[in-house]
C-alpha cells in the first residue's frame, strides 16, 4: 500500500507540473501579450511599457520566464538574459517561484503579492466548499438509500423527478431565484456576503452561509444519491445479501451491516469528483451570493486582465483539485481492503 501511495503521489506531482505548463501557456497565448491592458491607456509611452516589462520580467525569452515563474529566479545567472531588471537592482525583490509558493506580483492590485491575495480569500471558499460537501453527503446518502430500497415505487420516482427538474436549470439560477424570493421579498436570508459588517458572530455567519451552501450542494447530492442508488442496487443482488436474509437476520441489520457497508466503499471515490465540482462551481456561486472567495477573485482578476493573478488562481485551484483527488484515493485504499494496488495504477 505504501508503494501505491508513493506512486499516486508522484503521479499527482506530475499532474501539478502539467497544470503549471497549461497555466503558463494560456498566459502566453493572450493576444497582444500580458500587458495588453495598457493599450487602453492613452497616456502610456514606450518607456512605460519597457519599464513595466522589466519590472515584471517580461523582457526575457519565454522559456526563461517559465523557469523564473515556476522555479524562482534568484538562482538564475545574474545577467539581463536570465534575470528581470527588478532582480538585478534589488536581489530581495526576486520571485521565488511556484515551487516556493511565490506567484509573483499582481498587475491590478499594484504590486501586492499574488499569493497573499489568494490566501486571504481561501478560507471563504473552503468554508463554502466544505459545508456544501457536507450537506451533499447528508442529503445525498439518505436519498440514494431510499430510492434504491423503493426502486420503481413512488419515493424513487419522486426523487427522480426532482433530480431531473433540478438538472434542467443552472444551479446558480436556482440560487438567484431563492435569493430574490427568500432574501429580497421575505427577508429570511441576507442578500449575499459572508457576514454583516461589524457583526462577526457565529449565528450571523451561519445565517449568511445557509442558502449558499444549500444551493451549491445541489449538484453534489444529486451525484451522491445517483452513485449510492446504483451501488446499493448492485450490492442488493449479491449472493451474500440473500444469504444474510436466508439465515434470518432482520432486514434492518442486512441493510445497515451488509448492504450499506459495501455500497459506501465506491462512494468514497465519488467524493473526489464532487469536490472538484464544488470547487469549479464556486466561481458562479460566489458571484451570485457575493461571497468573498477565490471564485470572485478570479472574476475580478479576469475583468482587470491581471494575468499573474489569473495564472496563480488557475494553478492553485488545479493544485487543490489534484490534491483532493489524491487524498480521496488514499482514503479509499485505507478504507477498502479489497483494492489491489498493483493493478489499479496504470
Amino acid at each position, binding site marked *: 500500500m505504501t508503494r501505491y501511495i508513493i506512486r499516486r503521489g508522484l503521479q499527482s506531482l506530475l499532474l501539478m507540473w502539467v497544470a503549471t505548463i497549461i497555466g503558463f501557456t494560456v498566459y502566453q497565448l*493572450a493576444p497582444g501579450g500580458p500587458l495588453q491592458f495598457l493599450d487602453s491607456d492613452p497616456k502610456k509611452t514606450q518607456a512605460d511599457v519597457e519599464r513595466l516589462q522589466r519590472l515584471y520580467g517580461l523582457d526575457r525569452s519565454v522559456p526563461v520566464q517559465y523557469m523564473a515563474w515556476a522555479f524562482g529566479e534568484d538562482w538564475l545567472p545574474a545577467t539581463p538574459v536570465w534575470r528581470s531588471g527588478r532582480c538585478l537592482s534589488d536581489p530581495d525583490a526576486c520571485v521565488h517561484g511556484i515551487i516556493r509558493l511565490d506567484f509573483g506580483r499582481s498587475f491590478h492590485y499594484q504590486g501586492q503579492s499574488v499569493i497573499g491575495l489568494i490566501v486571504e480569500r481561501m478560507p471563504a471558499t473552503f468554508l463554502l466548499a466544505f459545508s456544501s460537501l457536507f450537506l451533499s453527503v447528508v442529503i445525498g446518502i439518505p436519498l440514494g438509500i431510499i430510492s434504491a430500497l423503493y426502486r420503481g415505487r413512488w419515493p424513487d420516482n419522486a426523487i427522480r423527478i426532482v433530480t431531473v427538474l433540478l*438538472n*434542467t436549470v*443552472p444551479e446558480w439560477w436556482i440560487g438567484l431565484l431563492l435569493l430574490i424570493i427568500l432574501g429580497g421579498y421575505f*427577508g429570511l436570508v441576507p442578500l449575499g456576503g459572508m457576514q454583516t459588517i461589524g457583526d462577526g458572530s457565529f449565528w450571523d455567519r451561519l445565517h449568511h452561509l445557509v442558502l449558499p451552501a444549500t444551493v451549491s450542494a445541489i449538484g453534489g447530492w444529486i451525484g451522491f444519491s445517483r452513485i449510492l442508488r446504483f451501488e446499493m442496487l448492485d450490492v442488493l443482488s449479491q449472493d451474500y445479501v440473500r444469504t444474510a436474509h436466508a439465515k434470518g437476520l432482520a432486514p434492518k441489520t442486512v441493510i445497515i451491516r451488509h448492504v450499506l457497508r459495501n455500497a459506501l466503499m465506491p462512494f468514497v471515490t465519488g467524493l473526489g469528483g464532487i469536490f472538484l465540482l464544488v470547487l469549479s462551481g464556486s466561481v*458562479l456561486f460566489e458571484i451570485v451570493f457575493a461571497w468573498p472567495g477565490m471564485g470572485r477573485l*478570479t472574476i475580478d482578476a*479576469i475583468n482587470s486582465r491581471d494575468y499573474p493573478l*489569473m495564472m496563480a*488562481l488557475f494553478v492553485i485551484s488545479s493544485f487543490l483539485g489534484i490534491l483532493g483527488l489524491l487524498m480521496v484515493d488514499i482514503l479509499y485504499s485505507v478504507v477498502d481492503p479489497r483494492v489491489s494496488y498493483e493493478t489499479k495504477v496504470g
Partner: protein
Amino acid sequence: MAERVLTLSQPQIKRNEPVPVAVQSYWGMVRRRLVRDKITMFALGLLIFMVVISLASPWIGTHLLGFDPTSTDLLSRNQPPTWATDAWPLFQSFTQSCQNNAHCDWAQWGHILQRAAAGIGQCFTNGAPCHWMGTDDAGRDVLTRGVYGGRISLRIGVWVAGVSMTLGVLMGLLSGYYATTFIDDIINAIIMTLGSIPLLFLLIILSRIFQPGPEGLAILIGAFGWMGLSRLIRGQIFSVREREYVIAARAIGTPSWRIMVRHVLPNVASIIIVSAVFNIAGAIIAEAGLSYLGVGIGPPLASWGNMMQGSLGNFTDAPWLVITPGIFIFLATLSIYLLGDGLRDALDPTL
C-alpha cells in the same frame, strides 16, 4: 429469409395473395418505440417548438411582440411588464410589509391579482405593443431577447455536442483500438489531467482571453466535454473486440479501420446519440453560466445567459430579468433531457 410475424389481420388474407412479411429492422423498432412513448413525443414537440420560435424570432419580434432585440430605450429602463405597471407598486409594498414587520400583508394579493388581470386585458385590447416580460437595464424588451436568445443558446448547444462527440468518438476509438500502446497512454493522460483540474476556471480564463463568438465559445466548451464519451466508447470497444463477428472479420483480412467503422461503431451508435443529446443540454447550461459571468456571449447579442448578467446589481427590483431567461433555459433543457431519456430506452435492444 426474414422471419414471419403473426399479425391480427392475418385471418383476412386470401389464399392466393402473398403473405405480408414484416421485417423488423433495428431503427424501425426504435422509431416505433419512440412514437409510442408519450413523454418523449411531448418532449420532441416542445423541442421543435423552441427551435421554431428561435428560427422565426425576427418574424415573431416584429409581428407578434413588436420589438427589436437590440434597440435600446433609455427612458424605459428596468420597467416591469406593461400589464403589471399598476400591480407592481402594490407587490412592492407587499414585500415591504414582509421585510419590516415580519408578517406579510397577504390581503393585498386580491388587489394585486385584480390589477394584473386588468393589465393583461388592456395589453390584448389596445393595439400598442406590450413589454410582456418587462425591459432590461438598457430598455430592451426582455421577452423579445429571450426568443432571440434561443438562436445563440441552441446553436451553441448543437455545436458543442458536435465538437465533443467528434472528439469523444475519435479519442475513444483510438484509445480502445490501440489499447496498451502509447497512443492509449497519451489519451488516458489527457483525460486524467482534464479530470483533475477545475475546468470552469480554465474555461473562464480562455474565453476571456480569446473573447470568442458563438462558434468559438462552442469549440472551447466542447474541447473540455469529450472525456466521458471517450471513456464509454473505449470500454465498449473492449467488450466488443473479442466478439465472434469481430474475430471473424479479422480472420478474413478486413483492415482494422474497416472493422472499426463497420463493426464496432454501429455497436456504440446508441451511446453516442444519447450522450450527444445530453451534451446539448449541458452545453446550454454551461453557456448560460459563462455568459452570466460576462465572459461568454457579450451584448448586444442576446443569449439566455447574458440576459441575466444585467440583473447583477438589481435582481430584487427587476426579477423578470432573472425569471424570463430561466424559463427559456428550463423549457429547452427539459425537452432535451426527456428526449434523451426516451431515446436511451428506445435504443436499448435488451429492454
